[in-house]
């Protein structure tokens, strides 16, 4: 059994013809030709990928531009979403204020009840032994406890309304983000329009490449919308 490392490795892929030619070049001219051929092969793959990317980007921007023109995402949907978010914030603010109206109205009433009950308790204590005064005293004690519990509950209700501040802050952050996204989208569409109105810059420098390579590249790029 062969246990050498070489035996475990997969068989090496054969060298591309251009590389074999390059390595086997016997003089400077044939080396240059082989090198050009190798570079062209690599450039072809690169421009193919670039062309595909450019076409996909072009299509995406075209869709976005048509969406904007037809009053879609950036033109209408995003401002509308922000408007609704603003409405939700206003409604939550009104709801929180409505709850605070109630707590503010009841808080002094609870305080007055507690005070009146305390006064009555003292008076009833002075009439100890009188069955009516005893009953009134017991009722006053219950009322005082109830009023105290009410004040505590109303205080908790008041603090609980801080949800509006916390959720409102998040809504403001989302609205600000949406506004930024809207501006970026519109800028992208504007930029794409500007680019579409100008001839594309040469994809590769004219010098340093053979005419056939440039033509090949131009044809290839034309296929992808350049």
């Amino acid at each position, binding site marked *: 059994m062969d246990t050498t490392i070489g035996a475990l490795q997969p068989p090496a892929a054969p060298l591309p013809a251009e590389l074999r030619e390059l390595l086997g070049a016997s003089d400077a001219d044939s080396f240059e030709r082989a090198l050009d051929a190798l570079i062209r092969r690599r450039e072809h793959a690169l421009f193919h990928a670039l062309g595909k990317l450019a076409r996909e980007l072009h299509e995406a921007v075209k869709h976005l531009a048509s969406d904007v023109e037809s009053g879609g995402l950036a033109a209408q949907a995003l401002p509308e979403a922000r408007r609704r978010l603003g409405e939700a914030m206003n409604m939550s603010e009104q709801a929180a204020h409505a709850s605070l109206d109630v707590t*503010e109205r009841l808080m002094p009433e609870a305080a007055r009840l507690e005070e009146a009950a305390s006064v009555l308790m003292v008076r009833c204590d002075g009439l100890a032994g009188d069955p009516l005064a005893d009953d009134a005293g017991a009722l006053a004690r219950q009322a005082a406890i109830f009023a105290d519990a009410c004040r505590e509950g109303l205080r*908790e209700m008041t603090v609980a309304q801080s949800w*509006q501040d916390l959720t409102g802050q998040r809504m403001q952050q989302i609205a600000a983000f949406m506004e930024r996204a809207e501006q970026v989208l519109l800028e992208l569409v504007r930029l794409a329009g500007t680019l579409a109105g100008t001839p594309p810059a040469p994809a590769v420098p004219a010098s340093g490449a053979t005419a056939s390579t440039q033509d090949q590249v131009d044809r290839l790029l034309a296929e992808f919308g350049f």
Partner: protein
Amino acid sequence: MKILVVDDFSTMRRIIKNLLQELGFSNIQEADDGATALPMLKAGGFDFVVTDWNMPGMTGIALLKAIRAEPSLKALPVLMVTAENTREQIIEAAQNGVNGYIVKPFTAVTLKEKLEKIFERLATAS
């Protein structure tokens, strides 16, 4: 004691005002950001400031810095009540001389405790 409550949310101003009233403070005024608060404070008469951090215009931390930089206001006690609770922010507030820091959401008990602590420290210092 005259207190200024600074917050861009009217609900939060009202909540803090109600809680302070419950604690026996009745002279309370409101401002919706630091830029509105600062001239009110400079006009004089305030003994205590409760401020939010994140506000449009002038933030709470900018207000705190402005208070500490103003000779007539630099000793004014400032309590921050904010949802901002990163370590860096708390350190920044402390380094700029904040007297207390409450993280939202908070309870009435927390507010009471922090206020008492601030007044205790001020009484010891004076």
